[in-house]
Each structure stands twice: as C-alpha cells, then as structure tokens.
C-alpha cells in the first residue's frame, strides 16, 4: 500500500524534471498548439483577427475546422514558388557552407591540442556580436561603391563595379557567413576524434593523400557532415532577415511571405498555416538531425 502510494507522490527527482519540462511545454509546445488552432480559423477584421473554432449555440458546442487556408497555400502558385525557392536557396547555401566549413574544421582538428581550443573559439566569437550588425556590415562590403568593388577596381581586376548587393549571390554570402559556425562546430567535434593511425596505415599501404581522405576521413565524418548540414539547412529555410537586407526585392523566401501575411496583411490564420506547412517540410531534416544527434550522444556516453 505504502509502496503504491509512494509511486504517486512526486519525489525529489520530479522537482528537477518539472521546471525545464513545464517551461518547454509552456513556451514551445503550447504556442505551437495555438498556431495550429489559428491555422484552422478564418480571418476577421476584429480583435483577435480570427474566428474561434468552438461555437456555442445555447445547447451544443460545435467545432469548425476550416481547411481553406491550407488549400489556399497549395493552389496559389506564389506560395508554392516561395516554398520551393526557400528550399533551393537553403540547399545551395548549405552546400557552400559545407565547402567553406569543411576545410576550416579539418585544419583546426590538425592543430596541436593547445591551439585547437583557441582556433575554434575564434570561429565562434563572431556570432557573439549582433547578427543584425554583421549582416549590415555586408551591405557596406557588397554594394556598388562598397569595399569589395572598390578593392577589385583598385587592383585592376574589374573596371566597372559588379552589382552583388540585392542579388541571389548576396543571399548566399549572407547565409554562409551567418551559419558557418554551426557547420564548423559539429564537423570539428567529429574530425578531432579520428584516429590518426588510420591515415598512417593508409599511407603505409601506398594510398595517395586524396585517396586516403576520400576512403577514410570523409566516410568517417559522415555524422558530422549531416549534423552540420541540418543545423544550417533548417534555419536557413525560414531565414527572413538576410533576404530582406541583402536579397533582391523580388525574391520571396517563405520567411518573408510569413512576415508579410502576419504584419502587413494581418491575416493570422494564413500566416499560421504558412508556418505549419514550413515545419512539415522541415520535419524530415529535423528527424534526420535528431537521429544523428541521439547517436552521437550515445557514443559519447558509452
């Protein structure tokens, strides 16, 4: 009887579990449920600017789920294009990020143990300054009479400034710049664990350095590549500030569409539906990330 009762009385461990659990439910799961609810409502010019799902007509409660917002998204080619465009930009940026980040992570993992920490610190340090300010700095560098064009003209590489700001290229540069640390960190934690004797063995057996890299280092770093790529890809799809500041005004990434629906059109139901569909699209990459992260955690604990 007492043993049974004890199972139901919260013990000390629940005092540790409850605060973070309640916090995450309250500020992550509940807001999410609310946007799900609003996405099934209709827009109203009122406060709040949407209809309620439950109707009370004196004797019974009726629930009204409106799928119009979702149908609207699928039918309107502007939204479909914005989703595809965002996915494409995020994929290309992730690829470039990997291309830039892998050599950096590799070079750092080859440094002496005492130098490594300082080197990785230097990669993370820029992300401690304001994100907005770092993106603003790129405007000064990329614009027609900006630092980059001035430098290239002075060096005689080009005669007329090349327009980079407000092009797709500027978006790629901005995303690669902002998310580079997220790529380098998982790659570095993976690469630094590699046993150098494996490469020595490959060299002893006559493998050329590039072959040893392709056969040993690259396959072994698969988990790091996937974790880093997902950490860049997923937030990049929803990126709003970078295309707004650096990209062309015609470029519609889905984060920007969401912003416009929410703040300019004040159509909260459609905005909620836009964000939920975005999340649905990202569910697969999020699950891949979770899978590899869980694996990584297990290997660290064992």
């Amino acid at each position, binding site marked *: 009887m007492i043993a049974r009762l004890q199972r139901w009385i919260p013990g000390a461990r629940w005092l540790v579990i409850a605060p973070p659990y309640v916090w995450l439910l309250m500020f992550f799961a509940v*807001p999410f449920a609310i946007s799900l609810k609003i996405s099934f409502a209709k827009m109203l010019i009122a406060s709040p600017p949407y209809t309620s799902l439950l109707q009370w007509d004196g004797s019974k409660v009726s629930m009204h789920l409106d799928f119009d917002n979702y149908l609207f998204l699928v039918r309107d080619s502007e939204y479909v294009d914005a989703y595809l465009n965002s996915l494409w930009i995020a994929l290309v940026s992730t690829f470039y990020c990997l291309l830039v980040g892998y050599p950096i992570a590799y070079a750092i993992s080859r440094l002496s143990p005492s130098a490594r920490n300082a080197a990785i610190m230097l990669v993370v340090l820029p992300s401690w300054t304001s994100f907005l300010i770092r993106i603003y700095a790129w405007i000064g560098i990329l614009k027609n009479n900006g*630092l980059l064009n001035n430098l290239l003209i002075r060096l005689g590489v080009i005669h007329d400034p090349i327009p980079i700001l407000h092009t797709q290229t500027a978006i790629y540069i901005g995303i690669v710049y902002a998310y580079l640390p997220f790529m380098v960190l998982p790659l570095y934690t993976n690469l630094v664990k590699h046993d150098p004797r494996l490469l020595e063995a490959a060299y002893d057996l006559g493998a050329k350095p590039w072959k040893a890299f392709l056969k040993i280092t690259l396959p072994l770093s698969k988990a790091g590549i996937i974790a880093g790529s*997902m*950490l860049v890809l997923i937030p990049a*799809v929803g990126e709003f500030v970078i295309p707004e500041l650096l990209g062309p005004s015609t470029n519609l990434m889905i984060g920007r569409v969401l912003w416009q629906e929410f703040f300019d059109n004040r159509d909260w139901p459609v905005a909620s539906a836009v964000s939920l569909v975005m999340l649905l699209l990202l569910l697969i990459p999020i699950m891949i990330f979770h899978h590899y992260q869980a694996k990584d955690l297990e290997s660290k*604990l064992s």
Partner: protein
Amino acid sequence: MLVLGYLFLYAPIFSLIVYSFNESRLVTVWSGFSLKWYGELFRDQEMIDAAWVSLRIAVFTAFASVLLATMAGMVMTRFRRFAGKTLFGGLITAPLVMPEVITGVSLLLMFVTLGEMRDAHMSS
C-alpha cells in the same frame, strides 16, 4: 586555408570597427579619423536606455538558461527513464533547429491569446 576562413569571418566586423572612426556619415567614403560618432553615442539617451534594456534581458536570460539547462542536462544524462522522456528529449532539440520566425510568430500568438483571456476575465 585557415587564414582565408578567418578573413571571411572577421573582415565584416573589422570594416565596421574601422568605419566607426570615420568622419563622414557614409560607410564607404573615408574622410578622416574622428571620434565624433562615439561622442554622439554617449549623448543619445535613447541609445543608452536601449543598451541597458539589452543588458538586463541578457543577464536574466543567461541566469535562467543556466538553471533550466543544468536541470534538463541532468535529467537527460543522469536520470533513469520515465514516462515522457522521449518527448522531453524532442522538446530540447526542437528549438535548436526550429526556424526563428516560426518560434517567434507562435510565441506572439500565444501572448496575444493570453492577453485576450486576461481581458475577457477582467471584463466579466
């Protein structure tokens, strides 16, 4: 290789630092060394107030994060399984990868809903 990487990471930040000492209002035209923008900064009360608000929010967030994250970390690594541990693990990683705009909009919607509930409660 590493030097190029660091150049890419630090060039924008250094360009900002250098041009903050620029006499001219324009970002790209160098018209001489000046500390006048720093003088303006310390005369701008609104800017100083904003900096204080940022600092306060940052300090509180850091304390709260350390507290909650230490608990969550203990739960994930030291505690034996309990009902809902998988959901807990999911809730921990989800905000890490969730696009900010989704988190922001859904939080805003929740605060609006809470506000409505409070108003309805007060008027009844």
